[in-house]
C-alpha cells in the first residue's frame, strides 16, 4: 500500500528486519513504511516487538538481517547519533529525560547543534514553550522534579528541538491522566500539520486510530495486518483478534 499523500518514495522504509537481543529472536522479518508527513500507528500487545522496531529504526539496536532505508538511503547500522542529526527523533517508553539536567538543558541537547543559528534556537524555544507553557515555567528545574505528564511533554519537546522529519513515539500516553492524553493528541495533530511524520506505538487503540492515517498491527515479532485506520474503525473483529480489546 502506498502512503496516503501520494508522494512517491516513503520517508522511512523498513524491510524484512530480523532483530535479536542476545539469543532472543525478537523481530521476524518486519517490514513497514512511513511516508513524508504521515502519522502511522503501530499496534500490538505487550512484548510483540513494537519498541524493538522503533529502536532498530533509530539505530539503537542493529538488525541481523534486513535494512532500514531513510530518504532513499540505506541507514542500517548507522549509530543513533548520526540518525538523530539527519532527521530521525526518538521519544522512548518511560520518557527517559535527563533527570539531573534542567528542562532548559534537556532542550539544549536537541538544539545545540552545528548549523543552528541563535535566532533559530530562540524560535524553536519560543515554539515549544508555546505548546508547552508549563515547560517555560519550569525551565530551570531539574528534569527529575517534573511530574510524569510534564516529563512526557519535555521528552517530546526535546525531540522537536532536533527539527526532525520523523518522530518515533513510543507509548506517549502510558500512565497519563485523560487531560494529558488529549494534550498529546493535540501535539500529534500539530506535528502532523507541520509536516513531521510520526510512527506512533501505542496501546491506546482509539487514540491511535483517531490520530493515524494508517495502522500496522504486530504480533509475535512480525507485522500481521496493515490498513488505513478508517477501515479499522469499523472492523472491530481485527482489533479483537490481535489486541484482545
Amino acid at each position, binding site marked *: 500500500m502506498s502512503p496516503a499523500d501520494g508522494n512517491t518514495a516513503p520517508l522511512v522504509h523498513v524491510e524484512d528486519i530480523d532483530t535479536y537481543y542476545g539469543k532472543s529472536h525478537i523481530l521476524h522479518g518486519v517490514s513497514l513504511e512511513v511516508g513524508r508527513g504521515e502519522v502511522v500507528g503501530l499496534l500490538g500487545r505487550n512484548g510483540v516487538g513494537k519498541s524493538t522496531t522503533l529502536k532498530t529504526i*533509530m539505530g*539503537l539496536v542493529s538488525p541481523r538481517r534486513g535494512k532500514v532505508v531513510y530518504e532513499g538511503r540505506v541507514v542500517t547500522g548507522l*549509530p*543513533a*547519533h548520526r540518525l*538523530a*542529526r539527519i532527521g530521525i*527523533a*526518538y521519544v*522512548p517508553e518511560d520518557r*527517559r*529525560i*535527563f*533527570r*539531573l*539536567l534542567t528542562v532548559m*538543558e534537556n532542550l*539544549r*541537547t*536537541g538544539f*545545540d*547543534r552545528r548549523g543552528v543559528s541563535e535566532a533559530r534556537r530562540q524560535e524553536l524555544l519560543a515554539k515549544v514553550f508555546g505548546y508547552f507553557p508549563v515547560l517555560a515555567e519550569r525551565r530551570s528545574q531539574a528534569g527529575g522534579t517534573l511530574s510524569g505528564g510534564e516529563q512526557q511533554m519535555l521528552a517530546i519537546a*526535546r525531540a522537536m528541538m*532536533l527539527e526532525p522529519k520523523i518522530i518515533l513515539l513510543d507509548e506517549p500516553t502510558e500512565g497519563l491522566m485523560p487531560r494529558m492524553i488529549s494534550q498529546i493528541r493535540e501535539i500529534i495533530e500539530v506535528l502532523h500539520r507541520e509536516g513531521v511524520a510520526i510512527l506512533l506505538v501505542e496501546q491506546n487503540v482509539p487514540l491511535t486510530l483517531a490520530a493515524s492515517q494508517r495502522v500496522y498491527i504486530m504480533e509475535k515479532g512480525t507485522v500481521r495486518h496493515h490498513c488505513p485506520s478508517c477501515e479499522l474503525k469499523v472492523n472491530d473483529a481485527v482489533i479483537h483478534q490481535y489486541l484482545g480489546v
Partner: protein
Amino acid sequence: MELVTEFLHAIPYDQILIQTLNGIVAGMILALVASGLTLIFGIMDVVNFAHGELFMLGAYVGVIIITATGNFWLALTVATLIVAALGAALQITTLRPLLGRDPLTTILATFGLSLVLQNYALWQFGPVARKIQEPFTGSFSIFYLQYPWYRVLIAALSAAIIGGFWLFLKHGTYGIWIRATTQDRVMAQAMGIPVPWVHTAAFAIGAGMAAASGVLFAPLVGVTHAMGLDWVLKAFIVVVVGGMGNLGGSIAASIFISLLESYASIWLDPAQAVIVSFVVLILTLLFRPTGLFVPTPK
C-alpha cells in the same frame, strides 16, 4: 586536673597544624587525580587501572620539559596536553573496541595498559628517581613555623583546575554533553550527541588531570616509574568512599582521607599510615557502602 593539663601539653599542636596543611595539600592533589578517575568511571563505566601511570607519565614529561626549558608552567601545560592526547589515543585503540562488553574486560585492559606504560617508563627513563625543582622556594610563617609557599600553590592550583572543570561541566554545550552521556548514554545518542567522542574526550580530560597532578606533585618526591601505583590505589579508595561517580563526594573523601593519614603520620611511620585509608574503606563498606559523603539512598 593535673592529668588534663598534662594531656593538653602533650598534644603536638605544631605538628597537628603542619599535618593539617599537609593533609589539605595532599588531599587536593588526590582530589584532582580522583576526579579524573570518577569522571571516567561515571561516564563509561571504566575502572581505569592505568590512571596512576598517566599521573607518572605527566610527571616525567614535566621533568623533560623543565630540564629542557627551565619553565615550570610550560612543563605543566605541555605535560597536561601531551598526556591528554595520549589518553585519547589509548581510549580509541584499546577501550573503544571493548564498548558494550563485560566490565571485567576494561579493568583488565587498563591493567594491561598500566603494566605496559610502567615498564615503558622504566625502559625510557631508568630506575633512578628524577627530581625537579619547585618553581619557587620560600615559605611563609604561621605562628612560629615555616610552611613552603609551593605547597600552598599546589593546593590552590588543584582547586582551581577542579573548579574550572566543574564550571565547564555546568555551562556550555560540551559540559551538557558530558553530563547527559553520564546519565543516559543511550538517550544521549538518540539526541545526536556523538557519544563515542564524548567518551574519548572524557578520558582525555581525566588523563590530563592526572598528568597535571603528576607535574604539581613531582617537586615534592622523586619521579619514578612506580610512583603511580600508590596513587591509583588511594584514588580507588577515594572513589569508593566518596560514592562511585560522585564528583563532590570524591573531593570530600580525598581531603578527609588525606587529613587522617597526615595526622596518623605524626605517630606512625609513613608506610603504616596508609592503613588509615584502608580502614576508612572497610568501615565505609560495612556501614555506608554507597559512599560516606553520599546521602543514604531511600
